[in-house]
């Protein structure tokens, strides 16, 4: 049988395309990947993601042309595995890899237990703290028990040099997820959070906490932000600090925001020279900014924050053919892209209905009925 490839263009939604291609076992052919750029082709982190996919799946084929502007990906069977180790590189943080991995792990042959090395916190991708406190809990609504689900932060690593290490454990779903009706956002009853600081003064954490609490305390007394200062081996290789806060509502919804500050890549030399370091955002500013981001998310409404919309839609679309109903705030461009990708790969269309009074959007869909096909029948 000849394989027919789904033709796509550009590097946009690279992770989602690979993820959906693997789940729906549709081979894809991506063309014109940054073909007009001065440095064309796939970025190191994208190549790293492809390597990761090869590690956890059986007989998938990846072909990249010489310039890296064309990719041919034919998915294999997801295997999972016990002791998989992957070095994520330093161009993107671990959060970039965790997002597709958590969905892929659910539909494998065996439970996935993977050790990822690289940058744990940066401002571009969701930090591992947010992932642990919020993202894993989304799966709970789709019938995945939280017992087997785990993210352990062994050591932290901030941006330019990394050195962090996390262990992700994802159980497989026995047959399929379960559809959810998740529209009650509730009221925020408590705010929790955690700061991290590596290779800086341990006082930085407290300063961030103080600043964030200053904003929150006018609204809510129940605010607890923990500090996690890492030193030595578990502190990674470069200085950095950041904060991740989660608001929990009365109905158990989690709305999160995070931020991390570290030296950008170009300043590695400067770092080596131990000269006057460039100005980083002060911990106080980080605290207040995170607090305002969180408040903005809360204002936006919805059962999850804006960065998790894509994942939520994806999980809804992967459910058995029942109606799932979720409420989110404003749709982000990324989640709109997700909706389109879901339509293209899984043939699932959402009914999107805005609610003018609350400025939220209610999405409904009938899942595509994906079953865990790679699981062994005994």
């Amino acid at each position: 049988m000849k394989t027919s490839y789904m033709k796509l263009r550009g590097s946009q939604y690279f992770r989602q395309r690979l993820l959906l291609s693997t789940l729906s076992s549709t081979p894809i052919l991506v063309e014109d990947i940054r073909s007009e750029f001065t440095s064309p082709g796939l970025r190191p982190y994208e190549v790293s993601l492809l390597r990761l996919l090869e590690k956890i799946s059986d007989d998938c084929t990846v072909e990249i042309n010489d310039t890296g502007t064309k990719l041919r990906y034919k998915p294999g069977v997801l295997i999972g595995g016990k002791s998989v180790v992957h070095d994520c590189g330093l161009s993107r943080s671990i959060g970039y890899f965790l997002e597709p991995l958590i969905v892929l792990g659910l539909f494998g042959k065996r439970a996935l237990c993977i050790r990822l090395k690289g940058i744990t916190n940066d401002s571009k991708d969701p930090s591992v703290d947010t992932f642990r406190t919020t993202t894993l809990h989304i799966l709970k609504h789709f019938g995945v028990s939280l017992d087997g689900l785990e993210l352990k932060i062994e050591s932290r690593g901030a941006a330019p040099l990394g050195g962090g290490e996390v262990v992700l454990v994802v159980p497989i779903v026995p047959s399929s997820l379960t559809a959810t009706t998740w529209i009650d956002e509730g009221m925020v009853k408590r705010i929790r959070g955690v700061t991290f600081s590596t290779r800086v003064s341990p006082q930085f954490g407290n300063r961030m906490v103080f600043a964030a609490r200053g904003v929150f305390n006018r609204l809510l007394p129940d605010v607890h932000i923990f500090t996690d200062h890492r030193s030595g081996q578990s502190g990674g290789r470069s200085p950095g600090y950041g904060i991740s806060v989660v608001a929990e509502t009365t109905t158990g919804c989690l709305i999160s925001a995070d931020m991390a500050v570290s030296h950008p890549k170009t300043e590695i030399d400067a770092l080596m020279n131990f000269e006057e370091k460039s100005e980083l955002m002060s911990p106080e500013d980080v605290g207040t900014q995170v607090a305002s981001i969180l408040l903005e998310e809360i204002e936006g409404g919805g059962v999850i924050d804006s960065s998790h919309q894509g994942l939520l839609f994806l999980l809804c679309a992967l459910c058995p053919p029942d109606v799932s109903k979720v409420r989110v705030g404003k749709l982000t461009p990324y989640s709109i892209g997700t909706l389109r990708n879901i339509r293209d790969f899984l043939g699932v269309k959402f009914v999107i209905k805005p609610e003018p009074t609350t400025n939220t959007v209610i999405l409904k869909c009938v899942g595509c009925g994906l079953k865990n096909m790679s699981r062994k029948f005994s």
Partner: protein
Amino acid sequence: MATAAGEQHHKAHRAPQSGASSKNSSSKKKQGTSSDGKQQNPKAFAFSSSVKAKRLQSRAVEKEQRRLHFPTIDHSIGEPAPYVVVVHGPPKVGKSLLIKCLVKHFTKQNLLEVRGPITVVSGKQRRLQFVECPNDINGMIDTAKFADLVLLLIDGSYGFEMETFEFLNILQVHGFPKVMGVLTHLDKFEDVKKLRKTKQRLKHRFWTEIKEGAKLFYLSGLIHGKYPKREIHNLARFISVMKHHPLSWRAVHPYLLVDRFEDVTPSERLHSNKKCDRNIILYGYLRGCNMKRAAKVHIAGVGDFSLAGLTSLTDPCPLPSAAKKKGLRDKEKLFYAPMSGVGDLLYDKDAVYIDVNDHFVQYSKVDGENGTSVRNGKEPDVGESLVKILQTTRYSIDEKLDKSFIDLFNVKPLNSSNDANVSHDKTTVRGEITSNNCYGQEHIDPIDGESFKASDKIEKMNMTDEIELEDSDEENDYHDEDDQQILFNDDQEAEFHNGRMRRKAISNFEDLEVSEEDEEDNQLTLSSESSGGSGEDTDSEGGNDSKWKKSLIARARMRQNTNLMQLVYDQSSSNPATTGRVTEGSNSEDSDDEEFFIPKNEWDKRIIQKPDYDDINIEDCSKLVPSLLKDWSSEGLISVIRDRFVTGDWSKAARRGEVGDAEEDGEALYGDFEDLETGKVFKNQSVDDAKGDDVKEMEDPEAEERRLKKLALRAKFDAQYDESEISDEEDDQTKGKKFASGSANASGYFDKLKEEMELRKQTNISELNQLDEATRVEVEGFRTGTYMRLEVHNVPFELVEHFDPHHPILVGGIGIGEDNVGYMQARLKRHRWHKKVLKTRDPIIVSIGWRRYQTIPIYGVEDQNGRHRMLKYTPEHMHCFAMFWGPLAPPSAGIIAVQNLSNNQAAFRVTATGVVLEFNHAARMVKKIKLVGYPCKIFKKTALIKDMFTSDLEIARFEGAAVRTVSGIRGQVKKAAKAEIGNRSKASGANIKEGIARCTFEDRILMSDIVFLRAWTRVDIPQFFNPVTTSLQPRDQQWNGMKSVAELRRENNIPIPYDKDSAYKPIERLPRKFNPLVIPQKLQADLPFASKPKNKLAQKRPLLEKRRAVVMEPHERKVHAIVQHLKLIKNEKMRKRQLKEQVKKKEYEAMKAKTEQVSKKRNREERRDRYRVQEKQKRRTKRRVGEA
């Protein structure tokens, strides 16, 4: 349906007051009860022992649990598709006759020939589709995949035949539908006793095959060439009350049984090339699960195709409208069998075709070919020649129109707004071959004349009219029947094609024969003409008559709802990254008036979304970093979100959390026209629910939730009630008990699960019914039970050429990932009736899911350490693994394997059955390999081994592998030996022998040792599969696939290769000669004396003591004799004494046994007395305690 069932009043049972049956029933009752109405001995069935009671209870619970199955959610909403009743049996058993009789019973009409599926309305809630199972194994496999109920016809005079058992096996593998046996040919028996015995025997055999108590019908003989009316009535009754449970494979795959088939290839293409790929249209009821537009399908016996078009049509054989009445009226006893040529009216998307018998028509085409015979000597007139010119056209009217484009209003050519829609206009001028036309329309009725036939036809026409009328009554009352009659009289357009005439009826009003899609198109054209491009694009229900209802605001409101969806989904046309699907028309129409009616929040969203659309290389980042943060320290901002915290106003927040709150507000503002509309639309789909939904939508969500729960509970109760009813039918004896235990178990986990599922289903229904029709179809696909029209392009022409309506066409939807190919691992067992074991690499034909294909399996077993070891042959009576290459089927799909497809084979054709375990692309089947080598040089513990490997490269591959000698000395392969080491290689000079390995052992080995290397090597599984395309060849021809090696040898007369070394020979083992042990002289000198070898020569003569004889003296001899005598006497005495003792012992034991018995008896009596006293005492104390 539930409501209808609830309203229906069953007539209460009235016991017979007089006659034989009344006596019977009364006497039966009396047997169990005494005269005063009480049971005679109530204690007889009470528990006497607690242990026994416990045991009985546990057994009852166990039985109860075994009865339970994991509940499956039934996703089907609305009217179910007709149930498929497959009539199967060996040839000449009376299958077609049975179908004819049943059709006659249900519809009161005579069927001349059974061809293809026949749909019949059997009751107010049920339709049936009768299909005759073809007589070849491929047809049997296909029919088993769509059968809901199987009538197994068995020739009673002959007994069971192989086909029946084969079919049962196929059924079991592909999900076991309901099966009923029917015994025919019972009039062949003359002896009543023999008949009874045969019935009994066949019944029990049938039971072992299916289950104890399976229903077997007896059709005794024929009356006027038909089965007796009474028996058919009984059978029909059984069929129409039968319950059908969803089967696991079918519940998750959409499928249709094609009941109408058309070839719509443009005639120009056919003219140019007869063997071009065809475009076909398949019609049938959608079953299984919902089907989406983008679905891929597998046509059984042909291959996989993606759909070029998928539309729903009006039901050709609808259920009667739910009015309160008993039974069906004659008008409602419809039946629909286009392949059998009875429904002469064919409804297409945009046209109605009336089939006219051949002899009513004069063929102009035929005229052209051999015209002289028909009209001799006459000149062809002008009209005729014109028609002929038309017939030989090269281009279709479409193409011509396309070429000569006339621009009237300076607008773009209109396209249909529905993206996946087929090109509807193509259908107007196409050449069609319906099945009826292909296979003639010869209703040769020996009795009736032509005139009768014509009137009959008109009758049928009228009948179908009326049905349609009833449907449309609700919507438009002003159309009366006269209009429709006009339709058939006036507006006709003759269409000549392939020498046949079809008259196409063009109607003035759309509702009769136009499906929704076309309504939409019509509407689109209308609106575009009047207002110059302000068409509605998403709502299909907006007919002409309903337009006035919509106020401008309501329309704006509609658009707002759909706008966000459009923003998300329709943008992709401008987005170059994905395939553009949406037509330009809708976009341009939107943009012109959207500027005016955009809510504020909507506008914001658009602004957010505006950037990045054109960039195909945007950063892949799920986090949206806000560019501008608000300053949350200001009091005004905080007050905005104050109510989102527990410290704020709870009542406000509670209101915010509710569903549909806002929607309702909005709706109240804009008026509720939509609701009325949707209510109307959904009336067709689910009559009972829709109205209630819409009315109650206004109420608060809690009430909604309550209502859902109530509905779920009711459905659950219905299900339970039905279930108990079934069990009652199954076995009357345990009726009471089962019912009781069922209700006792009611609060268990099982029921909770069921309730949950029912609740989910009700939520689904209510959520989906809120949507308008077009969106709903897009979101969930077409619902099961709708009559579908599938357009498939580029189908091999053989399918059309060799189409035979006797062989049903199955179209199955392909799930996610099932169109890929790969290695599959299955658990397989040879069928015990198949004569031979199966050989690895012999091709077999397997049927998995919808597909049938030939593949080459490798068999194997799993060793204890998890290794998959290849087997050359399947085990005799055991399951084994089979690995093969083919289109992937999900785990737990059943497999049936066949080796021989031929019909005239006497033996059992089903070779093996099994189940798919998993699929992994990397096949891991291994077989053992044993490398043998001989030492060529031995150092201390190292040896050079020759003949094990052929090259140094090979040795490199095996470095570190374990080796062993025959004597059990273990070792390891080290490296390839250097060529110089070997003595011989030096001598021979030029050709240095490669492949000598250096191995080390735990001990020094001998030159005579043989060295083994045991290893496992991967067996590659052939990447071969060959779809069994039986539909692409004449049906009587046998399909030829890959032949097995044995078959090829037999055909070409090639002997089986004989390897001399493989033959077993008697092993000759020479006695091994060991050299004597030689101890060096020096060592001997050092040894202690004991260990020193004693160098004594062996004595030739025996020693003196052994050699000499002893002679006794006379005295001595006497003494010796006396001693011997004494010994004899003593022995005799001892023997006698022993005998006596034995006798004594026996006597003693007998006596002892007697006394023991006596004492035991006494003891027992004593004990009984004691217990009695104790019991009394206990009772007394208890009573005392009770009193106290």
